[in-house]
């Protein structure tokens, strides 16, 4: 199709409108969104005296990493980090495995009950967490799983599985069936076709979904605070514990906060593109 008229290009915008409609609002947004992290970091490297001085300083006069030393020494922050890692890894592996199988089933087969089952998975996020938390607490207590990592893993699957099924179903629908059909004509059975043909194409999507599940379990607080004790408490609970032992220790909390978000941010940046594509596909297509 030939175009008879000029397309208004971004480069044709006037400098004034670039400044007022792009740069100024963009900078304001980024400052608003990122300032809390800057502030958290600055707080974590302030000395105690500077922290509780009535004049607020925007960069510490004498930066110190004492809070980090205390956090890992006296407060043994590695322990909750290890607990969080265990819970997040197990949750990710379990959810990813069962969700991929379920999503493959939804995406590739037509069977009686397919529609109601899909709706069951899609509407799952309607149930308030607090509603699930109450019976899960009593059940975990009865089957003696309370205060073990499994109590958290099982509770987290209540939201990670439905979500991953939905996400993986979207990714799988984008992979043409012709791909595995070709393999099956060549004599491979369905399982083999899935492993040899689909899985390699799906791998980046699996990683993106895995990162999302990991993030959710790493960050979760409401279940964690009720379902853990001193031995297996996860990072979010440990962070909150720093409030109120000896007043609020803001340098320790902020240091812990920085340590907590860094791994998640790194993982997120690698998975970001595909994850966002998968998340938005459903909502945009409708």
């Amino acid at each position, binding site marked *: 199709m030939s175009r008879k008229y000029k397309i208004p290009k971004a480069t044709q915008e006037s400098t004034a409108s670039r400044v007022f409609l792009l740069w100024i609002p963009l900078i304001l947004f980024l400052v608003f969104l990122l300032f809390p992290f800057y502030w958290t970091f600055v707080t974590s490297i302030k000395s105690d005296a500077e922290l509780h001085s009535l004049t607020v300083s925007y960069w510490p006069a004498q930066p110190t990493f004492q809070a980090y030393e205390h956090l890992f020494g006296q407060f043994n922050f590695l322990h909750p980090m290890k607990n969080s890692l265990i819970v997040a890894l197990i949750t990710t592996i379990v959810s990813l495995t069962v969700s991929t199988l379920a999503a493959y089933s939804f995406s590739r087969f037509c069977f009686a009950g397919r529609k109601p089952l*899909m709706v069951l998975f899609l509407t799952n996020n309607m149930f308030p967490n607090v509603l699930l938390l109450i019976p899960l607490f009593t059940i975990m207590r009865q089957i003696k799983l309370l205060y073990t990592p499994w109590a958290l893993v099982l509770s987290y699957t209540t939201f990670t599985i439905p979500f991953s099924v939905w996400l993986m179903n979207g990714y799988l629908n984008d992979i043409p069936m012709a791909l595995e059909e070709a393999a099956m004509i060549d004599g491979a059975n369905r399982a083999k076709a899935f492993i040899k043909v689909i899985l390699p194409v799906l791998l980046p999507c699996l990683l993106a979904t895995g990162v999302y599940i990991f993030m959710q379990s790493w960050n979760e607080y409401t279940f964690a605070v009720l379902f853990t004790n001193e031995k297996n408490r996860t990072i979010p609970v440990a962070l909150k514990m720093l409030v109120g032992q000896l007043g609020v220790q803001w340098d320790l909390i902020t240091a812990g906060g920085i340590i907590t978000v860094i791994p998640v941010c790194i993982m997120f940046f690698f998975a970001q593109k595909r994850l966002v594509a998968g998340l938005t596909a459903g909502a945009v297509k409708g």
Partner: protein
Amino acid sequence: MELKSRRKRFNIYPYLLLAPALIIMLSVVIVPIFNAFNMSFMNYNLTRPNKMGYNNFGNYVKMLNDSDFTGALWRTVVWVVFGVGGQFLFGFMLALILNKYFRGRGVARAVSLIPWVTPGVLIALMWSWMFDGNYGVINDLLMKLHLIDDKIAYLARKDTAMPSVIITIIWQGIPFFALMILAGLQGIPGDLYEAAAIDGATGIQKLFYVTIPSLRNTIFVTTMLRVIWVANSVDVIFNMTNGGPANSTQTLAVYVYKKASSLDMGYASAMAIALMLVLLVAAIPYLKSTFAEKGA
């Protein structure tokens, strides 16, 4: 979507593939929901195990006469309307900005999503520290800008606590809205803008007559997801104000959570079911579209 593998023979394969996910969902979601439903008709306080038993709708009667419950219900509405409303408004603005061409756009897009991947507890603690009455940076900034004269203890005052937690939840939710709307913006065919430009439409007119109508579905789905999410969220309020001062930030989800933490499971279940019903009613249009389009 094409379904070529449709066969007349009964095929057990899809059911086998679904089985693990279904079994887990059945045991951690469906059975517990029935459990909670059952508990909601009982005196079920774990601190008083010998007094358990059905109480003839006692929890529901108690709920209707509990001014803390009705207050919490009302505050949930305020929390959701302003929280989600703010997230939408600013998320939309951010999406429009990030949809323009500029150097460093990829980085700006990725970086602006960070609040979304930050744990709720940490968000609550970071903002509590910034809102702090004595050493808080927000007081310092506002005083430097001469917007206030005296320091304010935001989270300790009845009139400022709710706005403070709402600002926090808005901050947390802007990225999600922005990324959904941005995806929607990228899906609008350029022809529509060209046609509007030929007809002499101004920027504002394009926004209202092209952009917003094209995004209707995206906005609708995203808002629905967020309403459910924000209404159910506990961690931000719980860790910033614990529902206080004088219950002024106690939403229904927070109230239920506190009741459950004090092991009064019967009453907590009844209120959690009430919360679910409220959300269900609010989400009817969303559910309808889910049944109509996605289930096909």
